[in-house]
């Protein structure tokens, strides 16, 4: 098993091992900060940040089951929807607003993104890259919507309604006047790909994309 992340950092203690792509997000977060994790699921990232980085973390999660599991772990999480429920949070209430693998499932991704950067000084966003060569292959040669381990659900059942490519996302950030502080693409298992700064390569080879943004 080799899920060492690419910057060569030592693996965390076994009990604190989290999904590789979440680990990459966690590595972007400075210790002792305030974090809002939107779509926090069972609280894997939130719990990790609380335990190992001493962050003051909060979560927002759509599924009742996810919320229940988080609160049962002692994590402060409430039931809510990224499209609807971000408006209550005060401006600048968090150092980071994290939206992991959720942007593509929102109704108004652009509004959600600007809400993230109203609430948080920085936004950390990850999403599946539709510009990945396999997606292109599926469309071009199979003539079918992409289906792969990261996008396993058929088009008629998927919660993902707003797909984009890395280039699309970068264009939106430019249009919104946002600063891309960091960006990287990940392979299918969630590990970072080292591709230099060529966005076109990243867009072709990256399965998922991860951005840190600021205003």
């Amino acid at each position: 098993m080799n899920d060492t992340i690419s910057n060569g950092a030592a693996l965390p203690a076994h009990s604190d091992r989290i999904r590789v792509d979440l680990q990459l997000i966690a590595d972007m977060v400075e210790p002792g900060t305030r974090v809002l994790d939107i779509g926090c699921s069972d609280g894997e990232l939130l719990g990790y940040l609380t335990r190992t980085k001493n962050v003051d973390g909060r979560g927002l999660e759509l599924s009742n089951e996810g919320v229940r599991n988080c609160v049962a772990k002692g994590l402060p999480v409430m039931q809510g929807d990224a499209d609807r429920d971000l408006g209550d949070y005060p401006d600048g209430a968090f150092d980071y607003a994290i939206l992991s693998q959720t942007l593509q499932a929102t109704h108004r991704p652009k509004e959600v993104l600007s809400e993230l950067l109203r609430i948080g000084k920085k936004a950390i966003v990850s999403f599946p890259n539709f510009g990945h060569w396999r997606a292109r292959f599926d469309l071009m040669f199979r003539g079918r919507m992409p289906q792969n381990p990261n996008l396993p659900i058929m088009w008629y059942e998927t919660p993902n309604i707003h797909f984009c490519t890395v280039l699309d996302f970068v264009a939106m950030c430019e249009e919104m006047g946002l600063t891309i502080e960091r960006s990287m693409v990940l392979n299918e298992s969630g590990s970072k790909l080292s591709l230099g700064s060529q966005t076109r390569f990243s867009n072709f080879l990256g399965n998922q994309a991860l951005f840190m943004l600021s205003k």
Partner: protein
Amino acid sequence: MSTAANTEKRPPLPGHHMVLGETDKLRLDSGVEFGPFTLAYQTYGELNADKSNAILVCHALTGDQYVADDVHPITGKEGWWSEIVGPGKIIDTNKYFVICSNVIGGCLGSTGPKDINPETGKPWGLDFPVVTIADMVRAQTMLIDALGIDMLFAVIGGSMGGMQVLEWCKSYPERVYAAAPIATSFRHSAQNIAFHEVGRQAVMADPDWCGGNYLLEGKKPSRGLAVARMTAHITYLSQPALHRKFGRKLQNRGAITYSFDQDFQVESYLRHQGKSFVDRFDANSYLYITRAMDYFDLSLEHDGRLADAFTGCKTRFCVVSFSSDWCFTTGESRILAHALNAASCNVSCVEIESDKGHDAFLLDEPDFHMVLSGFIQGAAEGRGLK
């Protein structure tokens, strides 16, 4: 005094009684300076050396201080939250010092309308001042002061108990480390006020209520109070729960009787609920306490901006609602949670799937217990309690 008082005489109730407000009286919302008065309370477990492990449990409308006793002194049943509070339980009395006091205006040992007004030598009746949720909490702070506790580790309660929890956090945020308002709201809804009014009118329509002077007259408005309880009890359940439990089943008979006898099991059940309630509850207390709930609205002082009631509050909250509760809906809890968010408070908000209605918070609901347990443990770590 008249013979009437004798019918109410019972051996003194077990547990602690503290006389408060002898020098500094209790200033009620109505403007009345009230005191001295008594609060009856129970404690479970031991207060630790730095007095950091105290949990105040707040009881609901018809609850009382016997939250975790094995045998309730009047009903003979287990305490109302024995499921949750006790050695090794979610609110672990091996670890925490649990306090539960009967609210002011109540009838289980704390000063209320059935007690003697020292100025007249007669029971207070309707001369008892109207009390509010804030008054109940103010009285509790005097008890907590007297016990030498600065900060409560947690304040926890359901329904009206949850209203007290919220009032504590709004008025004394520096004294509450963690708060669990359960199946409750920051305000009493029009529908809830309406049901309470039905209950009060039922009591007042009973000729034995005697304009509130039934104790002096040697009477007891049992029929009116029973009807009030029957109505209220329906609101604590849910349509599916009632149907599951009773359906249209007949009570000890094979066919309907073409009469107004209790043909249906649900009728028999409600009559039993009404009857057993009047044995343990004072009718005037019921009027006063329902009124306190009706008056509750935390957003009132802030021109409807609920978030302003919690500005700067450092307490960590766990707001819990139940999906089939139509007295205190998840919608209400979400308004509360959003306001707490807007005030930058630390808040968890969970809806528990249950078809048992409002009463679910008193019943065996594993998901609820899992959530409450996790919240308390997380808070205990935060507070450094072992």
